[in-house]
Protein backbone atom coordinates (compact mmCIF):
# COMPACT_ATOMS: atom_id res chain seq x y z
CA UNK A 1 0.00 0.00 0.00
CA UNK A 2 2.62 2.47 1.03
CA UNK A 3 5.11 1.78 -1.72
CA UNK A 4 2.87 2.71 -4.65
CA UNK A 5 1.75 5.78 -2.72
CA UNK A 6 5.36 6.85 -2.13
CA UNK A 7 6.19 6.19 -5.72
CA UNK A 8 3.21 8.23 -6.83
CA UNK A 9 4.18 11.09 -4.51
CA UNK A 10 7.76 10.99 -5.73
CA UNK A 11 6.62 10.93 -9.34
CA UNK A 12 4.28 13.85 -8.73
CA UNK A 13 7.03 15.86 -7.06
CA UNK A 14 9.37 15.07 -9.91
CA UNK A 15 6.71 16.09 -12.42
CA UNK A 16 6.05 19.38 -10.56
CA UNK A 17 9.72 20.26 -10.41
CA UNK A 18 10.10 19.49 -14.11
CA UNK A 19 7.16 21.76 -14.92
CA UNK A 20 8.61 24.51 -12.72
CA UNK A 21 11.97 24.21 -14.47
CA UNK A 22 10.40 24.23 -17.92
CA UNK A 23 8.34 27.26 -16.99
CA UNK A 24 11.30 29.30 -15.72
CA UNK A 25 13.30 28.43 -18.83
CA UNK A 26 10.38 29.28 -21.13
CA UNK A 27 9.89 32.69 -19.52
CA UNK A 28 13.59 33.46 -19.67
CA UNK A 29 13.71 32.46 -23.33
CA UNK A 30 10.63 34.57 -24.07
CA UNK A 31 12.36 37.60 -22.54
CA UNK A 32 15.57 36.99 -24.49
CA UNK A 33 13.57 36.66 -27.72
CA UNK A 34 11.58 39.84 -26.99
CA UNK A 35 14.87 41.76 -27.19
CA UNK A 36 14.96 40.93 -30.93
CA UNK A 37 11.49 42.46 -31.47
CA UNK A 38 12.76 46.04 -31.73
CA UNK A 39 13.97 45.23 -35.25
CA UNK A 40 12.31 41.90 -36.08
CA UNK A 41 8.81 42.59 -34.74
CA UNK A 42 6.67 41.55 -31.77
CA UNK A 43 6.48 37.72 -31.68
CA UNK A 44 8.93 37.60 -34.60
CA UNK A 45 6.60 39.15 -37.18
CA UNK A 46 8.41 42.10 -38.75
CA UNK A 47 7.21 45.29 -40.40
CA UNK A 48 8.31 45.85 -44.04
CA UNK A 49 12.06 46.12 -44.64
CA UNK A 50 13.20 43.64 -41.99
CA UNK A 51 13.17 39.84 -41.86
CA UNK A 52 10.51 38.06 -39.80
CA UNK A 53 11.83 35.30 -37.53
CA UNK A 54 8.52 33.60 -36.66
CA UNK A 55 8.18 30.12 -38.12
CA UNK A 56 11.62 30.05 -39.74
CA UNK A 57 13.04 26.50 -39.45
CA UNK A 58 15.28 26.18 -36.41
CA UNK A 59 18.28 24.86 -38.33
CA UNK A 60 18.19 27.77 -40.80
CA UNK A 61 18.06 30.41 -38.05
CA UNK A 62 20.75 28.70 -36.02
CA UNK A 63 23.08 28.37 -39.02
CA UNK A 64 22.53 31.99 -40.01
CA UNK A 65 23.33 33.26 -36.52
CA UNK A 66 26.38 30.99 -36.22
CA UNK A 67 27.60 32.21 -39.63
CA UNK A 68 27.15 35.83 -38.54
CA UNK A 69 29.02 35.07 -35.34
CA UNK A 70 31.92 33.40 -37.16
CA UNK A 71 32.08 36.19 -39.76
CA UNK A 72 31.21 33.78 -42.58
CA UNK A 73 28.06 35.70 -43.52
CA UNK A 74 28.31 39.38 -44.50
CA UNK A 75 26.28 41.72 -42.31
CA UNK A 76 25.83 45.37 -41.40
CA UNK A 77 25.48 44.72 -37.66
CA UNK A 78 24.32 41.14 -37.01
CA UNK A 79 27.95 40.00 -36.82
CA UNK A 80 28.30 42.37 -33.85
CA UNK A 81 24.97 41.43 -32.17
CA UNK A 82 25.39 37.64 -32.62
CA UNK A 83 28.68 37.71 -30.68
CA UNK A 84 26.68 38.74 -27.60
CA UNK A 85 25.09 35.28 -27.36
CA UNK A 86 26.53 31.85 -26.52
CA UNK A 87 26.11 29.01 -29.04
CA UNK A 88 23.61 27.40 -26.69
CA UNK A 89 21.57 30.60 -26.35
CA UNK A 90 21.51 30.91 -30.14
CA UNK A 91 20.19 27.36 -30.46
CA UNK A 92 17.49 28.02 -27.84
CA UNK A 93 16.43 31.26 -29.52
CA UNK A 94 16.30 29.59 -32.94
CA UNK A 95 14.03 26.92 -31.47
CA UNK A 96 11.80 29.55 -29.89
CA UNK A 97 11.29 31.52 -33.10
CA UNK A 98 10.80 28.36 -35.19
CA UNK A 99 7.85 27.44 -32.95
CA UNK A 100 6.10 30.83 -33.37
CA UNK A 101 3.23 31.22 -35.83
CA UNK A 102 4.15 32.90 -39.12
Amino acid at each position, binding site marked *: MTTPFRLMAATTLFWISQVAWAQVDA*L*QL*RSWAAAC*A*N*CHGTLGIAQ*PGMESLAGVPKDDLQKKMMDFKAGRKPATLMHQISK*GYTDEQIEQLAGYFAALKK
Partner: protein
Amino acid sequence: MKRRQLIQTAAYGTALGAAGLSAGCASTGLQSGPKVVVVGGGYGGATAAKYVRMWSDQQINVTLVEPNAAFVSCPISNLVLGGSKTMADITTPYDNLSKRHGVTVVRDMVTSIDPDKRTVRLAGGGELPYDRLILSPGVDFMMEGLPGMAKAGAQDQVLHAWKAGPQTLALRRQLEAMPDGGVYALTIPLAPYRCPPGPYERACQVAHYFSKAKPRSKVLVLDANDDVTSKGPLFKKAWAERYKGIVEYRPKHVLTDVDAAASTLKFEFNDDIKANVLNVVPPMRAGDIAVKTGLATANRRWCEIDFLTHESKAAKNIHVIGDSIQVAPAMPKSGHMANQHGKTCAAAVVALLTGKQPNTLPIYNNTCYSFVSDEDVVHVASVHRYDAAQKTMLTVPGSGGVSSAANELEGRYAMAWARNIWADTLA
Protein backbone atom coordinates in the same frame (compact mmCIF):
# COMPACT_ATOMS: atom_id res chain seq x y z
CA MET B 1 -13.48 76.87 -18.04
CA LYS B 2 -16.33 74.89 -16.57
CA ARG B 3 -17.22 73.50 -19.97
CA ARG B 4 -13.65 72.38 -20.59
CA GLN B 5 -13.47 70.70 -17.22
CA LEU B 6 -16.71 68.90 -17.94
CA ILE B 7 -15.38 67.61 -21.26
CA GLN B 8 -12.19 66.42 -19.60
CA THR B 9 -14.13 64.68 -16.86
CA ALA B 10 -16.45 63.11 -19.41
CA ALA B 11 -13.51 61.87 -21.48
CA TYR B 12 -11.85 60.45 -18.38
CA GLY B 13 -15.07 58.78 -17.32
CA THR B 14 -15.38 57.21 -20.77
CA ALA B 15 -11.82 55.93 -20.65
CA LEU B 16 -12.43 54.21 -17.33
CA GLY B 17 -15.80 52.94 -18.48
CA ALA B 18 -14.33 51.46 -21.63
CA ALA B 19 -11.61 49.79 -19.58
CA GLY B 20 -14.17 48.29 -17.27
CA LEU B 21 -16.06 46.94 -20.26
CA SER B 22 -13.09 45.40 -22.06
CA ALA B 23 -11.88 43.98 -18.77
CA GLY B 24 -15.26 42.37 -18.23
CA CYS B 25 -15.05 40.77 -21.67
CA ALA B 26 -11.56 39.39 -21.10
CA SER B 27 -12.32 37.65 -17.84
CA THR B 28 -14.45 37.71 -14.76
CA GLY B 29 -13.62 39.17 -11.38
CA LEU B 30 -11.26 41.74 -12.85
CA GLN B 31 -12.03 44.25 -10.11
CA SER B 32 -9.93 42.06 -7.84
CA GLY B 33 -7.19 41.55 -10.48
CA PRO B 34 -3.79 43.21 -9.99
CA LYS B 35 -3.45 46.84 -11.08
CA VAL B 36 -0.43 48.30 -12.84
CA VAL B 37 -0.17 52.02 -13.53
CA VAL B 38 2.37 53.18 -16.11
CA VAL B 39 3.46 56.82 -16.07
CA GLY B 40 4.71 58.12 -19.41
CA GLY B 41 3.91 56.81 -22.90
CA GLY B 42 7.32 57.03 -24.56
CA TYR B 43 9.46 54.12 -25.78
CA GLY B 44 9.72 52.71 -22.25
CA GLY B 45 6.23 53.21 -20.83
CA ALA B 46 4.19 52.31 -23.90
CA THR B 47 6.23 49.10 -24.38
CA ALA B 48 5.83 48.14 -20.71
CA ALA B 49 2.06 48.75 -20.84
CA LYS B 50 1.64 46.57 -23.95
CA TYR B 51 3.82 43.72 -22.71
CA VAL B 52 2.28 43.55 -19.21
CA ARG B 53 -1.08 43.01 -20.93
CA MET B 54 0.35 40.48 -23.43
CA TRP B 55 2.38 38.49 -20.94
CA SER B 56 -0.35 38.36 -18.28
CA ASP B 57 -2.84 37.08 -20.89
CA GLN B 58 -4.81 40.29 -20.22
CA GLN B 59 -5.24 39.31 -16.55
CA ILE B 60 -3.47 42.38 -15.16
CA ASN B 61 -5.20 45.77 -15.46
CA VAL B 62 -2.93 48.39 -17.00
CA THR B 63 -3.55 52.15 -17.01
CA LEU B 64 -1.14 54.33 -18.97
CA VAL B 65 -1.04 58.01 -17.98
CA GLU B 66 0.34 60.24 -20.74
CA PRO B 67 -0.26 63.97 -21.30
CA ASN B 68 0.30 63.99 -25.07
CA ALA B 69 -2.41 63.03 -27.57
CA ALA B 70 0.00 60.93 -29.66
CA PHE B 71 3.49 59.44 -29.53
CA VAL B 72 6.10 61.60 -31.28
CA SER B 73 9.44 59.82 -31.85
CA CYS B 74 12.73 61.47 -30.91
CA PRO B 75 14.63 59.04 -33.19
CA ILE B 76 14.12 60.28 -36.81
CA SER B 77 13.05 63.75 -35.49
CA ASN B 78 16.40 65.23 -36.60
CA LEU B 79 15.30 64.42 -40.17
CA VAL B 80 12.39 66.82 -39.71
CA LEU B 81 15.02 69.51 -39.01
CA GLY B 82 16.92 68.38 -42.11
CA GLY B 83 13.73 68.58 -44.17
CA SER B 84 13.46 64.99 -45.45
CA LYS B 85 10.73 63.90 -42.98
CA THR B 86 7.59 65.54 -41.60
CA MET B 87 6.03 65.55 -38.13
CA ALA B 88 3.36 63.16 -39.45
CA ASP B 89 6.14 60.66 -40.32
CA ILE B 90 7.28 60.50 -36.68
CA THR B 91 3.84 60.56 -35.01
CA THR B 92 1.87 57.43 -33.97
CA PRO B 93 -1.48 57.40 -32.14
CA TYR B 94 -2.00 55.44 -28.90
CA ASP B 95 -5.18 53.75 -30.23
CA ASN B 96 -3.72 50.28 -30.69
CA LEU B 97 -2.61 50.05 -27.06
CA SER B 98 -6.25 50.30 -26.00
CA LYS B 99 -7.91 48.59 -28.99
CA ARG B 100 -5.60 45.60 -29.37
CA HIS B 101 -4.23 45.22 -25.87
CA GLY B 102 -6.89 46.65 -23.56
CA VAL B 103 -4.59 49.25 -21.98
CA THR B 104 -6.58 52.12 -20.43
CA VAL B 105 -4.94 55.24 -21.82
CA VAL B 106 -5.61 58.31 -19.66
CA ARG B 107 -4.55 61.66 -21.11
CA ASP B 108 -3.33 63.40 -18.00
CA MET B 109 -0.25 64.15 -15.88
CA VAL B 110 0.69 62.51 -12.60
CA THR B 111 1.34 65.28 -10.06
CA SER B 112 2.27 63.15 -7.04
CA ILE B 113 2.82 59.58 -5.91
CA ASP B 114 2.02 58.14 -2.48
CA PRO B 115 4.26 55.05 -2.15
CA ASP B 116 2.64 54.03 1.18
CA LYS B 117 -0.96 54.23 -0.01
CA ARG B 118 0.12 53.05 -3.50
CA THR B 119 -1.77 55.74 -5.36
CA VAL B 120 -0.93 58.36 -7.97
CA ARG B 121 -2.70 61.72 -8.12
CA LEU B 122 -3.70 63.19 -11.48
CA ALA B 123 -3.50 66.86 -12.51
CA GLY B 124 -7.03 66.56 -13.88
CA GLY B 125 -8.27 65.38 -10.47
CA GLY B 126 -8.68 61.99 -8.92
CA GLU B 127 -6.38 59.19 -7.87
CA LEU B 128 -5.40 55.86 -9.39
CA PRO B 129 -4.52 52.94 -7.10
CA TYR B 130 -1.74 50.51 -8.07
CA ASP B 131 -0.22 47.25 -6.98
CA ARG B 132 2.90 48.06 -8.97
CA LEU B 133 3.82 51.36 -10.57
CA ILE B 134 6.03 51.66 -13.67
CA LEU B 135 7.58 55.11 -14.06
CA SER B 136 8.89 56.09 -17.48
CA PRO B 137 9.01 59.87 -17.24
CA GLY B 138 12.00 60.43 -19.54
CA VAL B 139 14.18 63.43 -18.79
CA ASP B 140 13.56 66.96 -17.60
CA PHE B 141 15.96 69.86 -18.06
CA MET B 142 18.19 71.45 -15.40
CA MET B 143 17.35 75.00 -16.47
CA GLU B 144 18.37 76.36 -13.04
CA GLY B 145 21.99 76.23 -14.26
CA LEU B 146 21.16 78.68 -17.07
CA PRO B 147 19.65 81.74 -15.31
CA GLY B 148 18.99 83.67 -18.53
CA MET B 149 16.58 80.97 -19.66
CA ALA B 150 14.20 81.99 -16.82
CA LYS B 151 13.64 85.43 -18.42
CA ALA B 152 10.28 86.03 -20.09
CA GLY B 153 10.17 84.60 -23.58
CA ALA B 154 13.70 83.10 -23.46
CA GLN B 155 12.50 79.49 -23.70
CA ASP B 156 10.22 80.35 -26.62
CA GLN B 157 13.14 81.83 -28.52
CA VAL B 158 16.00 79.49 -27.57
CA LEU B 159 14.78 75.97 -28.19
CA HIS B 160 16.09 72.57 -27.11
CA ALA B 161 13.94 70.45 -29.46
CA TRP B 162 15.22 67.51 -27.35
CA LYS B 163 11.70 66.20 -26.75
CA ALA B 164 10.19 65.62 -30.16
CA GLY B 165 7.02 67.66 -30.62
CA PRO B 166 6.14 71.33 -31.12
CA GLN B 167 9.77 72.42 -30.55
CA THR B 168 10.95 70.18 -33.39
CA LEU B 169 8.76 72.05 -35.86
CA ALA B 170 9.49 75.45 -34.27
CA LEU B 171 13.25 74.88 -34.66
CA ARG B 172 12.76 73.86 -38.30
CA ARG B 173 10.88 77.17 -38.84
CA GLN B 174 13.79 79.11 -37.25
CA LEU B 175 16.24 77.40 -39.62
CA GLU B 176 14.01 78.16 -42.60
CA ALA B 177 13.74 81.83 -41.55
CA MET B 178 17.51 82.21 -41.04
CA PRO B 179 19.24 84.21 -43.83
CA ASP B 180 21.89 82.50 -45.97
CA GLY B 181 25.27 83.26 -44.40
CA GLY B 182 23.83 82.95 -40.88
CA VAL B 183 25.11 80.81 -38.02
CA TYR B 184 23.23 78.02 -36.22
CA ALA B 185 24.85 77.23 -32.85
CA LEU B 186 24.14 73.93 -31.06
CA THR B 187 25.30 73.38 -27.47
CA ILE B 188 25.75 69.88 -26.03
CA PRO B 189 25.76 69.16 -22.26
CA LEU B 190 28.24 66.93 -20.43
CA ALA B 191 27.36 63.23 -20.65
CA PRO B 192 25.17 61.53 -19.56
CA TYR B 193 22.26 62.95 -21.54
CA ARG B 194 19.45 61.51 -23.69
CA CYS B 195 20.69 60.00 -26.96
CA PRO B 196 24.52 60.29 -27.02
CA PRO B 197 24.91 60.56 -30.85
CA GLY B 198 21.76 62.70 -31.27
CA PRO B 199 23.43 66.14 -31.23
CA TYR B 200 26.04 65.09 -33.78
CA GLU B 201 23.36 63.65 -36.07
CA ARG B 202 21.49 66.94 -35.68
CA ALA B 203 24.60 68.86 -36.77
CA CYS B 204 24.69 66.66 -39.91
CA GLN B 205 20.98 67.17 -40.63
CA VAL B 206 21.11 70.95 -40.29
CA ALA B 207 24.28 71.00 -42.41
CA HIS B 208 22.54 68.84 -45.02
CA TYR B 209 19.71 71.37 -45.19
CA PHE B 210 22.12 74.31 -45.36
CA SER B 211 24.18 72.64 -48.12
CA LYS B 212 21.04 72.50 -50.29
CA ALA B 213 19.16 75.67 -49.29
CA LYS B 214 21.64 78.22 -47.89
CA PRO B 215 25.22 77.07 -48.54
CA ARG B 216 27.00 80.10 -47.07
CA SER B 217 25.56 79.30 -43.63
CA LYS B 218 27.42 77.65 -40.73
CA VAL B 219 26.71 74.96 -38.14
CA LEU B 220 28.68 75.62 -34.97
CA VAL B 221 28.79 72.68 -32.54
CA LEU B 222 29.74 73.71 -29.00
CA ASP B 223 30.29 70.56 -26.95
CA ALA B 224 30.83 70.57 -23.15
CA ASN B 225 32.53 67.17 -23.53
CA ASP B 226 36.23 66.68 -24.33
CA ASP B 227 35.37 65.02 -27.63
CA VAL B 228 32.44 63.63 -29.65
CA THR B 229 30.77 61.18 -27.23
CA SER B 230 29.52 58.62 -29.80
CA LYS B 231 30.60 57.41 -33.28
CA GLY B 232 33.29 60.14 -33.20
CA PRO B 233 35.42 59.20 -36.23
CA LEU B 234 32.31 58.61 -38.38
CA PHE B 235 30.75 62.00 -37.57
CA LYS B 236 34.06 63.83 -37.96
CA LYS B 237 34.53 62.22 -41.38
CA ALA B 238 31.04 63.37 -42.43
CA TRP B 239 31.75 66.93 -41.30
CA ALA B 240 35.17 67.04 -42.99
CA GLU B 241 34.05 65.49 -46.30
CA ARG B 242 30.32 66.10 -46.80
CA TYR B 243 29.97 69.38 -44.93
CA LYS B 244 33.38 70.97 -45.36
CA GLY B 245 33.20 74.66 -44.55
CA ILE B 246 29.74 74.30 -43.02
CA VAL B 247 30.25 72.36 -39.76
CA GLU B 248 32.73 73.52 -37.17
CA TYR B 249 33.19 71.40 -34.04
CA ARG B 250 34.53 72.90 -30.81
CA PRO B 251 34.93 70.63 -27.73
CA LYS B 252 35.30 71.68 -24.07
CA HIS B 253 32.64 74.41 -24.29
CA VAL B 254 30.69 74.29 -21.03
CA LEU B 255 27.65 76.55 -21.31
CA THR B 256 27.01 78.73 -18.23
CA ASP B 257 24.27 81.08 -19.43
CA VAL B 258 22.16 82.22 -22.36
CA ASP B 259 21.26 85.79 -23.27
CA ALA B 260 18.26 85.18 -25.48
CA ALA B 261 17.63 88.89 -26.19
CA ALA B 262 21.19 89.32 -27.48
CA SER B 263 21.16 85.84 -29.10
CA THR B 264 24.38 85.08 -27.23
CA LEU B 265 25.84 82.02 -25.46
CA LYS B 266 28.15 82.32 -22.43
CA PHE B 267 30.73 79.69 -21.48
CA GLU B 268 32.83 78.70 -18.48
CA PHE B 269 36.23 79.29 -20.11
CA ASN B 270 35.54 80.41 -23.68
CA ASP B 271 34.49 83.73 -25.26
CA ASP B 272 30.80 84.55 -25.74
CA ILE B 273 29.31 83.38 -29.02
CA LYS B 274 26.55 85.20 -30.89
CA ALA B 275 24.59 83.32 -33.54
CA ASN B 276 21.40 83.68 -35.58
CA VAL B 277 19.76 80.52 -34.24
CA LEU B 278 20.61 79.19 -30.78
CA ASN B 279 19.77 75.56 -30.05
CA VAL B 280 20.58 74.74 -26.43
CA VAL B 281 20.40 71.11 -25.32
CA PRO B 282 20.46 71.69 -21.56
CA PRO B 283 21.87 69.33 -18.91
CA MET B 284 19.19 66.87 -17.90
CA ARG B 285 18.04 64.61 -15.10
CA ALA B 286 15.28 62.08 -14.41
CA GLY B 287 11.77 63.29 -15.10
CA ASP B 288 10.40 65.67 -12.43
CA ILE B 289 7.90 63.18 -10.99
CA ALA B 290 10.72 60.71 -10.23
CA VAL B 291 12.87 63.40 -8.60
CA LYS B 292 9.90 64.75 -6.60
CA THR B 293 9.10 61.23 -5.32
CA GLY B 294 12.66 60.90 -3.98
CA LEU B 295 13.74 58.22 -6.44
CA ALA B 296 16.68 60.13 -7.96
CA THR B 297 19.26 58.82 -5.50
CA ALA B 298 22.30 59.09 -7.82
CA ASN B 299 23.56 62.70 -7.62
CA ARG B 300 19.92 63.72 -7.20
CA ARG B 301 19.73 63.28 -10.97
CA TRP B 302 19.10 59.64 -11.84
CA CYS B 303 17.12 56.76 -10.31
CA GLU B 304 19.02 53.71 -9.04
CA ILE B 305 17.28 50.42 -9.79
CA ASP B 306 17.62 46.65 -9.51
CA PHE B 307 18.43 45.59 -13.09
CA LEU B 308 16.57 42.26 -12.71
CA THR B 309 13.22 43.94 -12.07
CA HIS B 310 13.80 47.69 -12.57
CA GLU B 311 12.37 48.18 -9.07
CA SER B 312 13.59 51.41 -7.50
CA LYS B 313 16.22 51.07 -4.78
CA ALA B 314 14.43 53.87 -2.93
CA ALA B 315 10.79 52.72 -3.01
CA LYS B 316 9.11 49.31 -3.06
CA ASN B 317 6.58 48.48 -5.79
CA ILE B 318 7.80 51.38 -7.96
CA HIS B 319 9.76 50.43 -11.08
CA VAL B 320 11.72 52.96 -13.14
CA ILE B 321 12.62 52.47 -16.82
CA GLY B 322 14.09 54.46 -19.70
CA ASP B 323 16.16 57.64 -19.62
CA SER B 324 15.43 58.32 -15.92
CA ILE B 325 17.57 55.47 -14.57
CA GLN B 326 21.15 55.58 -13.38
CA VAL B 327 22.54 53.60 -16.29
CA ALA B 328 24.78 50.56 -16.20
CA PRO B 329 28.32 50.91 -17.67
CA ALA B 330 28.23 51.63 -21.44
CA MET B 331 24.42 51.66 -21.46
CA PRO B 332 23.10 54.57 -23.54
CA LYS B 333 20.00 56.60 -22.72
CA SER B 334 18.15 55.72 -25.92
CA GLY B 335 14.68 54.91 -27.17
CA HIS B 336 15.81 51.42 -28.14
CA MET B 337 17.17 50.83 -24.64
CA ALA B 338 13.99 52.23 -23.03
CA ASN B 339 11.96 49.71 -25.08
CA GLN B 340 14.25 46.92 -23.76
CA HIS B 341 13.80 48.19 -20.19
CA GLY B 342 10.04 48.19 -20.80
CA LYS B 343 10.03 44.51 -21.72
CA THR B 344 12.46 43.48 -18.96
CA CYS B 345 10.35 45.33 -16.41
CA ALA B 346 7.04 44.03 -17.82
CA ALA B 347 8.24 40.41 -17.53
CA ALA B 348 9.39 41.00 -13.94
CA VAL B 349 6.18 42.79 -12.92
CA VAL B 350 4.03 40.00 -14.37
CA ALA B 351 6.19 37.40 -12.59
CA LEU B 352 6.04 39.25 -9.25
CA LEU B 353 2.27 39.75 -9.44
CA THR B 354 1.66 36.07 -10.26
CA GLY B 355 4.02 34.54 -7.70
CA LYS B 356 6.81 33.56 -10.11
CA GLN B 357 10.52 34.29 -9.99
CA PRO B 358 11.71 37.09 -12.30
CA ASN B 359 14.28 36.19 -14.98
CA THR B 360 17.71 35.97 -13.36
CA LEU B 361 19.66 36.59 -16.58
CA PRO B 362 18.40 39.51 -18.69
CA ILE B 363 20.16 39.85 -22.06
CA TYR B 364 19.28 42.62 -24.51
CA ASN B 365 20.80 44.72 -27.24
CA ASN B 366 20.96 48.34 -28.30
CA THR B 367 20.98 49.44 -31.91
CA CYS B 368 21.29 53.09 -32.81
CA TYR B 369 21.28 54.51 -36.33
CA SER B 370 22.35 58.08 -37.13
CA PHE B 371 21.62 59.78 -40.46
CA VAL B 372 24.61 61.76 -41.70
CA SER B 373 22.56 62.87 -44.76
CA ASP B 374 18.98 62.21 -45.91
CA GLU B 375 20.04 58.69 -46.99
CA ASP B 376 23.36 57.60 -45.51
CA VAL B 377 23.57 56.15 -42.03
CA VAL B 378 26.08 54.98 -39.41
CA HIS B 379 25.21 52.67 -36.53
CA VAL B 380 26.44 51.66 -33.09
CA ALA B 381 25.31 48.33 -31.63
CA SER B 382 25.88 46.60 -28.29
CA VAL B 383 24.70 43.55 -26.33
CA HIS B 384 24.13 43.88 -22.57
CA ARG B 385 23.98 40.92 -20.16
CA TYR B 386 23.28 40.79 -16.43
CA ASP B 387 26.32 40.19 -14.24
CA ALA B 388 25.23 38.51 -11.00
CA ALA B 389 28.47 39.33 -9.15
CA GLN B 390 28.34 43.05 -9.93
CA LYS B 391 24.51 43.18 -9.98
CA THR B 392 24.45 45.31 -13.11
CA MET B 393 24.20 44.98 -16.88
CA LEU B 394 27.57 44.69 -18.65
CA THR B 395 28.33 44.60 -22.36
CA VAL B 396 29.29 41.13 -23.56
CA PRO B 397 33.03 41.12 -24.35
CA GLY B 398 33.72 40.91 -28.09
CA SER B 399 30.20 41.94 -29.08
CA GLY B 400 28.96 45.23 -30.54
CA GLY B 401 30.61 47.83 -32.75
CA VAL B 402 30.01 50.58 -35.27
CA SER B 403 29.63 50.86 -39.07
CA SER B 404 32.85 50.84 -41.05
CA ALA B 405 31.55 53.78 -43.11
CA ALA B 406 28.30 55.69 -43.72
CA ASN B 407 26.15 53.81 -46.22
CA GLU B 408 22.79 53.84 -47.94
CA LEU B 409 21.88 50.22 -47.11
CA GLU B 410 21.86 51.08 -43.43
CA GLY B 411 19.75 54.12 -44.30
CA ARG B 412 17.06 51.69 -45.43
CA TYR B 413 17.59 49.49 -42.37
CA ALA B 414 17.31 52.55 -40.14
CA MET B 415 13.82 53.31 -41.44
CA ALA B 416 12.88 49.62 -41.12
CA TRP B 417 14.17 49.76 -37.53
CA ALA B 418 11.91 52.78 -36.91
CA ARG B 419 8.83 51.05 -38.33
CA ASN B 420 9.53 47.93 -36.28
CA ILE B 421 10.27 49.61 -32.96
CA TRP B 422 7.24 51.88 -33.32
CA ALA B 423 5.11 48.78 -33.90
CA ASP B 424 6.76 46.84 -31.05
CA THR B 425 6.15 49.79 -28.73
CA LEU B 426 2.68 50.87 -29.83
CA ALA B 427 0.93 48.36 -32.10
